[in-house]
Structure formats: C-alpha cells, structure tokens
C-alpha cells in the first residue's frame, strides 16, 4: 500500500470528501501504522483528532462524508421565542458547534475533556416553516410536511416534524453525545426537545473510507448517490437564485424514518432479494452486470424477453436519468430496543426494531424528492418490507464564517 493510499484510509471521509479537510500535519506521518499490503487499523488514535472545518460557504455535515454515527435532534420553539430570541438561540448553538467540532470545549462546558476527540464531528442546523415565520422571512414553497403517501405511510408524530433540526455526525459517539448535550442544554430557554433519533454505519476503520454503506437488509445502499465535489452533487443540492436570499448556498433536508421488516425479509431468498432492488447483494453491482458504480441498464432483456431489472425493482423505480435532478442520500441504520407489546409481521412478539434513517439533500423538495417518492409509493418491490414511520422537511441554511452564525441571513 502506498503512503498516499494509507493516508487516505486513515483520514477517512476527510480525504475522500471535497470541502472537508483534516488538520493532521505531516508530522503525524511518523506515528501512522507501518506500511503493509492490507488496509491497516488506526492504532495511533489519529482519527480522534480529525476535524472537519465548521465554517465555510456550506454547512459541514452536508459536504463531509457521513460519519460512523449520527444523531438527529428535533426541537420545537417555545411561544416566547420571537425573532430576536431565535437569532440569539442560533448564535448560541452555532458557537457550541463551532467550538466542539474543532475539539475545544464550549462556553460554560463542564466536560471540556469530552471535546478533544471530535473524530470528524459535524453539526448541521435546519429550520422548519414555523422558525422561518418567527424570523419574519420568506419560506421556500416546498418547506412543510411532504404530501401524504397513503400507499406506504404509517407516520407517527413522535418521529416526525419539528421547528428545527440538528444533525450531528462523526466517527465518535462520545463526542456526538457531548455536543448533543450542549445543544439541548443551550436550547432550554428557547425550545423543547421534540424527538431524538440515533443511527449508525459501520464503525470507523471497518471498511476503507468511501465504501458505500450496507443497510440492515444487507444491501449496498446509495451506490449512485452523488458525492460531495461532484458536479451532480452541486447541481442537485445547492439552492440558487430561485430560493430566498437567506437560503442560497443552503439546501433542504428530508428525513424519513423507515422501519424494516426483518422477519418478512427472512422469508425471501437471495434471488428475490436481489430482484426487489435490481442489484447484487454481494457487491451492489446492477443485475445487468459491471461494478457497483456502473450504470444500471433498465432496458436490458433476458433470453425470454423480460427486462433483467424488474420494472418494479427499487433501483428501477428510483432511477433518475439526470442525477442533478435527483436527490443526494445520507442514510444511517437504527437498531433500537423492541417496544413493549410490539408484534412482527406474523403476529409473534417482535424481536427486532430496526430500520433506516433515510436522509436526503436536495435544492427543491417538490421538484426532486416528491416525484421520486411518488413513483416509489405507487410501486416498489421493497415496499413489501419497508414502512415510513417518521417524516420531516427542513430548510438547511448555508454555512457561516467566523463571527457569524448559521441562519444569520434570516435576520438580514
């Protein structure tokens, strides 16, 4: 393995994702694991010190590679949180995030020792329609609950909505927990915690960085989603002149909590599993051949004249010819305690409560997310085993520079 590729492995998403940068100096090279033919573990704790810059034109959680862990916090504004108080709140939360993501304790932080291993920690703030209204600013037309998808939705309030959302992701759950704690502590005078959802991917170091995640159905999930730095990513994600001025350079977040019926999935063989998605389980490659990231051929036919990819397969239904008009996905699995009294799809006492925190970035929810979701709701073989139980849409303001705060454009 070359020095460069070993370094890329160790630096994880920071090396892979444009806009993200590691603060590790060349002096660090001396303590990296020795070169070997195989990917090697980070035995030096280097990843703990990895920082993703907080300040910049875009919020860092959008432009950085997803961490191994994620926490979403949704908050509802207190009645007394008016325009001035909303600005004060966003300034406080921005300050907490700006410090803790860079490995420094927050102001009035009683546990600054927890800050020193950010491990790529990022914080991304989003606002719902009520927050934009309190600010007295104009909201984009798409900001509000998604239209109902009665074919599939089984939404629960406890996983849905919120006047504001915070997404924390990084490779270290302790640093995430500490920033989450500072945020809820500093929100007490302004808002109440509506819900908290935690998710994960493979642990840092388990896969080479940049590996597409596997969801808990075992599927390679997100092979075609544009990566930060791709032209398609920029075109799909960043709000431009069509958006209110405060949102330009920002985007939107759709979060769907999708319960996965593992017991039902157990009954499906490999062929059925692959057919339902249109991709091979082993490596995520399209059933029409090639490698994981090769284009899927929806027209290819087998000897009997049927398309190789079932027209109702997930990959066929979700396919967007122009990725700039699609969405950018950021998924995390959840594996939560079984809820008291829950039963599985066969009526037995439930033994699992798993699913996917399906997040997506797009510049226009109505133009990009809704048409795709509508196609999937009408027909998607995966719907047999998946159920959306939570849903929310937030505007994600652009990033800020030092001395500024996320959302400051609302108060201009």
């Amino acid at each position, binding site marked *: 393995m070359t020095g460069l590729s070993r370094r890329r492995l160790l630096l994880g998403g920071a090396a892979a994702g444009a806009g993200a940068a590691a603060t590790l100096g060349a002096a660090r090279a001396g303590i990296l694991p020795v070169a070997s033919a195989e990917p090697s573990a980070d035995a030096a704790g280097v990843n703990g010190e990895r920082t993703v810059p907080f300040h910049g034109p875009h919020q860092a959680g959008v432009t950085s590679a997803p961490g191994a862990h994620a926490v979403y916090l949704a908050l509802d504004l207190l009645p007394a949180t008016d325009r001035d108080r909303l600005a*004060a709140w966003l300034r406080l939360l921005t300050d907490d995030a700006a410090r803790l993501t860079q490995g420094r304790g927050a102001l009035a932080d009683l546990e600054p020792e927890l800050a020193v291993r950010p491990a790529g920690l990022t914080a991304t703030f989003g606002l719902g329609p009520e927050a934009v209204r309190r600010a007295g600013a104009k909201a984009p037309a798409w900001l509000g609950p998604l239209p109902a998808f009665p074919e599939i939705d089984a939404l629960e309030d406890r996983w849905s909505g919120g006047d504001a959302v915070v997404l924390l992701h990084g490779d270290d759950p302790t640093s995430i927990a500490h920033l989450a704690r500072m945020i809820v502590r500093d929100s007490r005078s302004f808002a109440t915690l509506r819900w908290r959802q935690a998710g994960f991917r493979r642990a840092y170091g388990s896969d080479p960085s940049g590996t597409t995640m596997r969801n808990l159905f075992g599927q390679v999930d997100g092979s075609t989603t544009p990566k930060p730095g791709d032209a398609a990513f920029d075109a799909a994600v960043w709000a431009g002149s069509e958006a209110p001025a405060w949102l330009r350079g920002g985007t939107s977040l759709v979060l769907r909590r999708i319960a996965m019926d593992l017991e039902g999935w157990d009954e499906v063989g490999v062929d059925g599993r692959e057919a339902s998605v249109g991709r091979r389980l082993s490596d995520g490659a399209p059933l029409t051949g090639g490698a994981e990231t090769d284009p899927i051929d929806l027209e290819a036919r087998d000897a009997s004249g049927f398309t190789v990819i079932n027209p109702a397969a997930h990959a066929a239904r979700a396919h967007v010819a122009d990725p700039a008009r699609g969405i950018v996905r950021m998924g995390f699995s959840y594996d939560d305690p079984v809820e008291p009294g829950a039963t599985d799809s066969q009526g037995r006492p439930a033994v699992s409560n798993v699913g996917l925190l399906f997040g997506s970035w797009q510049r226009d929810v109505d133009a990009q997310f809704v048409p795709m979701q509508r196609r999937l709701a009408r027909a998607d073989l995966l719907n047999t085993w998946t159920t959306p139980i939570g849903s929310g849409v937030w505007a994600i303001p652009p990033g800020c520079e030092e001395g500024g705060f996320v959302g400051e454009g609302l108060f201009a």
Partner: protein
Amino acid sequence: MHVRPLALAASAAAALLLAGCATDAASEDAALTVTDPWVKTAVPEDMMSAAFGTLTNTTDEDITVVAATSDAFPTLELHEVVDGSMQAIDGGFAIPAGESLTLEPGGLHLMIMELPEAIEAGDEVDFTLELSSGETVDFTATAKDFDGGNEEYHGSDMDMGSSE
C-alpha cells in the same frame, strides 16, 4: 491554581473571534486579552450573577485588574472563593507577565451584585476591566444558562464539593 501557561492563548484567541466578542482596535492591542467570556443567566429575583472568562497578559510586565464595570449593572466586584465562601479579592486580579488567569464557577469571578433586569440566554453583555495602569479593556460576554456554580450565591452555608 488559576494561573495557566501562555501556551493556551493561541487557541483561546481564535475562540474570542468565534464568540463574536469585543475585537475593536483598542482591545486587540491591549496588554490584556479576554477569551471565552460568558455570563450566567439570571432573573432580578436572583439578585446576583457572575461573569467568567480567561484573562491573558500579553506583555512582559505583571498586570493587575483593579475593577470591572458594565453599563448593564450598577455594581460589579472582583471576587474569589475561599474555603467555600466568596469574598471581594484584596488587590484585584494579578496576572503575571505572559500568563493567563481563568475566571470560572467556584473560583475567581466578576460578581454582579444587583440585577436591574434579567440576563437571558444568548444575550451579549458588555463589560470593561480597569487595570492598575489606568488602561481599560472592553469585552462582550455571551449569556449562558448554567446550573452549576450555585455554591457562589449561598454565602457561607454552601458546600464547595468538587468545584475546585
């Protein structure tokens, strides 16, 4: 002890900018810099509050802070906590050349004695420190909700516990 080496100052200076604190020309050139300043939220019924932060002496001469003022409060005192009781500190806050002094809950602090109105979370409160040289240093503290440090406000009947 509250005296800390200057090595911390570089990162603390960046924090000053982050927090949107006083950065006018006068304070940038000041012999004394104030980093990470914050003030505990309070309502008038609390009667008192306190402000904290790190004071760094950028010169090679010792500096003494002899007083603090704020347009927001009629009375400010420089306090220390000794054996669990807070009291006005004799002679002010002394900061040796090139060193830093941390004001923190349970230790040295700027005591706000009378609260004309509430300090709300996120408020930006202006303070001025007066040095023995006659110079002044302005800074702006961010108000934060803080459940700790209450021992300061209960006179001699408090339990310092693990604060310092």
